[in-house]
């Protein structure tokens, strides 16, 4: 038993090291006073300064934030509705329709959205088309999370609410919504992070106009992996961590699978 525990500890330490070492290296080298990502020379904030003077990069960050916020809001709204519908109406086709985009290779989704926008909708590609594209692939994730939350619950409590005098809307407001709130928050967070770092679908649906963050970063490393890229990545990481922190403060059961 003791030996098993030791092995388990070693295994988990190895896994976490493997996961986090690259991230830590990125953070460290974003403060490195050298143009090369090779050895540690000294501490500097130079790369962050360059970053904040890089007009193109700032624009890309702003655009990406607008897209991520819009797409995650829309996807959360629609995905929650989808999750509720899939749970309520036991139609076998519904989950397939909602979850397929999640399993679909991104490249396929990218190409088909591009064709759809250009040839069917006759849309000019840009921010709007990216927001629609991101919403499309995020809906499925939100629906899955919301539905999983509902599946773990006793359906009788919704009937009990009606039985005790609540109209369908009151039941939704007082019972359903508070109970699936952790799932909604988790879904929104996931949509946001999926959207802000999505490359493939963005690449297909962005057109030629506005710069978008992941694509901007990619363009930068095409020339050379500069510490400026490390700095952007570090900031992106910080944003994600902050979001997770805020979400857990807001409702402690977000990251726990069990219900309260």
């Amino acid at each position, binding site marked *: 038993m003791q030996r098993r525990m030791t092995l388990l500890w070693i295994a988990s330490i190895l896994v976490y090291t493997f996961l986090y070492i690259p991230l830590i290296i990125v953070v460290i080298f974003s403060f490195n006073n050298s143009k090369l990502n090779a050895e540690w020379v000294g501490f500097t904030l130079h790369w962050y300064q360059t970053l904040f003077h890089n007009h193109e990069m700032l624009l890309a960050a702003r655009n990406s934030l607008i897209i991520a916020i819009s797409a995650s809001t829309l996807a959360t709204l629609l995905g929650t509705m989808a999750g509720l519908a899939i749970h309520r109406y036991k139609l076998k086709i519904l989950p397939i329709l909602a979850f397929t985009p999640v399993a679909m290779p991104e490249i396929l989704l990218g190409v088909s959205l591009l064709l759809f926008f250009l040839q069917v909708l006759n849309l000019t590609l840009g921010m709007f088309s990216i927001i629609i594209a991101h919403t499309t692939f995020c809906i499925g994730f939100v629906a899955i999370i919301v539905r999983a939350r509902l599946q773990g*619950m*006793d359906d*009788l*409590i919704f*009937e*009990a*609410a*009606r*039985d*005790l*005098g*609540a*109209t369908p809307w*009151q039941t939704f407001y*007082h*019972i359903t919504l*508070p*109970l699936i709130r952790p799932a909604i928050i988790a879904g929104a967070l996931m949509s946001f992070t999926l959207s802000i770092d999505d490359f493939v679908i963005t690449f297909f649906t962005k057109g030629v106009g506005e710069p978008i963050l992941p694509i901007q970063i990619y363009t930068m490393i095409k020339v050379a992996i500069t510490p400026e890229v490390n700095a952007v990545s570090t900031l992106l990481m910080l944003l994600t961590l902050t979001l997770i922190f805020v979400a857990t403060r807001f409702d402690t059961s977000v990251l726990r699978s069990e*219900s*309260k």
Partner: protein
Amino acid sequence: MILIEIRNVTKRFGDFIAVDNVSIEIQAGEFFTILGPSGCGKTTLLRMIAGFDAPDSGQILLEGKDIIDVPPERRPFHTVFQSYALFPHMTVADNIGFPLKMSGKTRHEIMTLVTKALEEVELSQFGNRYPHELSGGQKQRVAFARGLINQPRLLLLDEPLGALDEKLRENMQRELINLQAEAGVTFIYITHAQNEALALSHRIAIMNQGKIEQVDEPARIYNFPMNRFVADFIGKINMLDASVIEVSSSHLKLRVTGLGEITVPAKACIKINDRGVLAVRPEQIRIAPEASEMNTGLQFIGKIKGFFYIGDVTTYNVELPNNTWIEALLPNSEPGHAKLFEIGDTVVVSWSEQSAQFLPN
């Protein structure tokens, strides 16, 4: 006064008839139990009364008015579910106050009533707890308090004691009887546990395969079951194949293979040559040592084949001259004795004419 009338209600799920042309009248203030094996349709019937499901045909009347089209939130009924169905994200106090909040009571009124309700179910210190912090019995009491807080006309109870252990269940049964008497609310109680039904109810409806087999007071259900299903479902009963050879206004004469002619009390709608069973409850059967004198004319020689010691009583398996086995139940009132007879003992078996009955096939 009739509070609820269920009139010719039928409910199908596909080809399956869950509730088959059921009609029941329930009096105001009554503790009415619907008893039947699982899958007999009792929960479906309850769900239709609560308003969760609509019958395919028939009517459900509240004081003479059809309520089929009234949604559950507008029916003055509440339900206590087997799983309790407490709201997991609300405190005990908020759970109990929920019906009041929905009916638009002020915060102050809700607080006063909830405090009183918490006292009544002895959970005063638990108002701020969440349901997952309570034991099964406590959850149960919260569910009752929530169901009764705004004095519904009718409380529907779907196997509410099913999830509790034996000892707790017995206590809760006593509490339930008091609760119903104090609240003066009509109860419709669903269960598959016959002892629970007998102990709690004013009247019992026995349900089987979507149909009502018999509606009666507990003692009448037990002593005068209408058919073989009811006799077999409620308590234990010995059944010996029999056919009717004589019918009169006061008695029936039966022929039982290997035992000869046996007289039982008369029963309506029985004709000569009807086949069925002679039924006697185990506690009505007397067994005595071979040598002892018996006054009754009806007696057989039997042999003890086995026994089953439960503590307060012992059940004996006795073989009759026609090679069938019957069960006889004897109280262990003599201290220190687990059994009064040994396997292989020859005994005299008898029962009074009044305690036996004929049940047609």
